[in-house]
C-alpha cells in the first residue's frame, strides 16, 4: 500500500542519486602513461610563443597553429613583424607603405588571437636581417617556442627554407616550429 506519491518520488530520487554516485565513482579515467604525460606536460609548459608574421596567408597559418598550440595552457602569443631595411638605407628610413603593411599583418594576427580568446602582444621592429632579429627577440621576450609559417621557394634548390627561417633554425635559443605550405596555390 503506497501512502503518498511524494514518497515514491523521494524513493526513486534516492535510488537514482545513490546509484549514479557509485556509477560515477567506479568509472575511473584510464591511467596516463609516463611518456604521454611527459610530452603533454612539456607542451603545456610553453607559455611564451613568438610568431613572426608577414601578413601573408602562410603567416596566418602559423598564427592559427600557435593558437592551437597555446590554447590549453592559456599561453601568451607574441606577434612580431620585422621590417627589413636594406643596408643602403639608414635604419629609420621612410620605407613607403611598409609601416602600414606591418600594421595590417599584426591586426590580422590579433584578430585570430581574439577568435581563440588568447592573450597576445605585438611588436613591429626594424632590422637589417629578419632572421637575426627574430632570434634576438626570442631571447629578449623569453620565448619558449618560435612558430613560423613559410612559403614555398620555387627554384631554390640548395636551401628549401629561405634565408630567414634558416637563420632562425640555426641560432634560436628555443624550440622552433616551421609550417611550410605546399607550393601549388597561394590565395
Amino acid at each position, binding site marked *: 500500500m503506497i*501512502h503518498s506519491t511524494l*514518497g515514491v518520488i523521494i524513493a526513486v530520487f534516492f535510488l537514482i542519486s545513490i546509484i549514479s554516485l557509485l556509477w560515477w565513482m567506479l568509472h*575511473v579515467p584510464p591511467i596516463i602513461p*609516463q611518456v604521454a604525460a*611527459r610530452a603533454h606536460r612539456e607542451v603545456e609548459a610553453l607559455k611564451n610563443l613568438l610568431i613572426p608574421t608577414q601578413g601573408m596567408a602562410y603567416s596566418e597559418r602559423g598564427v592559427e597553429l600557435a593558437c592551437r598550440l597555446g590554447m590549453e595552457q592559456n599561453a601568451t602569443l607574441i606577434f612580431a613583424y620585422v621590417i627589413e631595411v636594406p643596408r643602403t638605407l639608414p635604419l629609420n628610413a621612410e620605407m613607403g607603405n611598409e609601416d602600414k603593411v606591418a600594421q595590417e599583418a599584426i591586426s590580422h594576427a590579433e584578430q585570430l588571437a581574439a577568435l581563440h580568446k588568447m592573450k597576445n602582444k605585438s611588436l613591429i621592429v626594424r632590422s637589417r636581417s629578419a632572421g637575426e632579429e627574430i632570434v634576438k627577440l626570442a631571447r629578449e621576450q623569453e620565448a619558449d617556442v618560435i612558430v613560423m609559417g613559410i612559403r614555398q621557394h620555387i627554384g631554390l634548390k640548395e636551401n628549401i627554407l629561405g634565408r630567414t627561417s634558416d637563420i632562425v633554425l640555426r641560432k634560436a635559443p628555443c624550440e622552433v616550429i616551421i609550417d611550410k605550405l605546399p607550393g601549388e596555390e597561394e590565395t
Partner: protein
Amino acid sequence: MVSDNTSTPPSPELPHELRRDITVWGSYMWGYADVGADIYAALGLVIAAAQGAASLAFAAAGIVYIMIGFAYTELAATYPVAGGGHYFALRGLGDFWGFTTGVALLLDYTIDIALFAVASAGYVNFFLPYFGIEPSHFVFMLGSLKINYLWLSESFAFILFLIWLNIIGIKESSLFNELIGAFDISIESSVIVFGFLFAWKPEYLIQQWQTSFPTLHQFMYGSSLGIISFVGLESISQAAQETKRPATIIPRTSVTLIFTVFIFATAFSTLSLGVLPWQTFAQHIGDPIATLAHAIPYIGLFAGPITALLGATILLISANSGVMSASRLTYSMSEFGLITKWFDKVSPKYRTPVRTIVVFSVIGIVEMLLSFLTPQAMDTLGNMYAFGATLGYLIVFVALIRLRFSDPYTPRPYKMPLNLKIHYKDRIVDFPVLGILGFLGVGMVLFEVILTHKIGRIAGPAWVVLGIVYYIYFRKKNNMPVTKSIERNWEAHQMDVLISAEEFDLAEEYRIALKERDEKLKKHEQIKTDR
C-alpha cells in the same frame, strides 16, 4: 589498459614497503565502514535532541561535514600517502603539530576498536537464544559489578580476529570490508526505499515539524551530535598509501562518500519522522534503525534479525577500520621520527606494519576492558571520541590553508571550491575561502564539545597532553629538535610518492613547476650578483 608495461619496478632501497592492493570500491568502503556505524549510533541521539527538525539538524551538520570532506579530498589527492591528518599537519605546520594531530586522531581510532567491537558483539548476542544460549546467564559478579563474561570474550575474540586479518594483508582486510559493506549498503537502501514507498506519510512529518519544533539550543545540540555521524572520512586517507592510483581514486571515493553519507543521513531522518513520532526514537536511542524497520510493512516482519545482522556486521567493519587506521597512522608517525623508530617496520612476508597493528589494537583491548569494568567508561570514551576528531580536523584546516602558501608547486588534482586569487611573494595563491568557513564551523563544534561534554573536556585534553609529554621526552632523548622540525627533502619525497602511485601526469606537472621555479630563482640571483 596500457598501464602494465609502464608500471614502476619496486624501489630497491626500500624493499619492504606497503603494498598497493586497494581498489576503488575498497577505498570507498574503508570510509563507509567507519561512517556507516556512526549513523547507526547518531540517528537516535539527534532525533531525541532536535525532535521535529531532525532532518534540518542533519543537513546543518552536513554542511560543516561537507567542508571537512572537501578539505580531506584536496589534501589526500595532493599527498597520496598513509598518515591522513597527521601527515597534512606535518607538511603544513611542522613536526609538533603533526604529532599533536596524530595523537588526537589515534585516540579516535583506538576508541573505534574498543567501542564498536563491544557493540558488534552485543548485536551478535541477539542470535544466540536461537541456538539455545541465553547470553544473560554468563555473568559473574566483581564486587558490586555485574560482568557478562560471554560478551567480554566475544568482543575480545573479534579484536583478535581483526588483528590477524590485518596482519595477513591489506587485500584480505579490505576484501572483508568490501563484501560486508556492500551488503550493509543494500540493506540500508532497502529500508529507505521500502519506508518511503509503503510507510512514509508526509503530513505526519509536517505535523511533527509544526508541533515539535525544537528550541534553538536543542537544535544546536542536535546538529553538533549530527557531526558524530559524519566522522570517518579520515580512514580513506589512512589507506591512501596502499590504494592504487590514489591521486585519481581518492578524490572520487571521498566525494562519493561525502554525498552518499549526506543523502543517507537526511533520508533516514526524514523517513523516521514521517513514520513514527520522535518520542519513540527518543525512547529507543540505542537502536533507531531497528525501531524504524519494525514500523515498515513487509520488511517489518524480518526487522529483528535483519537489523541485528546489519548492526553486528557494520560495527565489526567499523572496528576493522579502526585497526587499519590506527596502525597506518602510527606507522607514518614513526617513519617521520615523531614516535619511536621501532614501529617503522613492514613485515617482509605480509607487507603490513605488524608491530603497530598489534600494539595499538592492544590499547583498544585495554580500553574495552575498562568499559566492561567501569560503567562510566563507555560514556567517557564517547565524549573523548568527539574531542579527538574535532581537534584533529581543526588543525587540518589550518594546514590546508598554510600549504596553499608554502607548497604551491605540488599539483592539486582537486581543489576545494571557492578560492580567492591573492598575490603573495610574486606569486598568485588561491586562498581557500571555504577553508576559513570550515575552520570556523569545526571550531564552533569543538567549542560546543568542550562546553557540554563534562568528562570529555578533561579526559580528551589529558590524552593529548600525555602524548606531548612523551613526544618531548622522545625527541630530547634522540637529540632531535622539540619545537622545530627535522630537515626533510619534501620535494624528492613528493616525487617518489607520485611516481610510486603511478600518477605520471602529476609527476610531470610537478617536475615542470619545480623547474620553472628554479629558473626564476636563478634569474633573480643573477640580477642580484649583476648589481
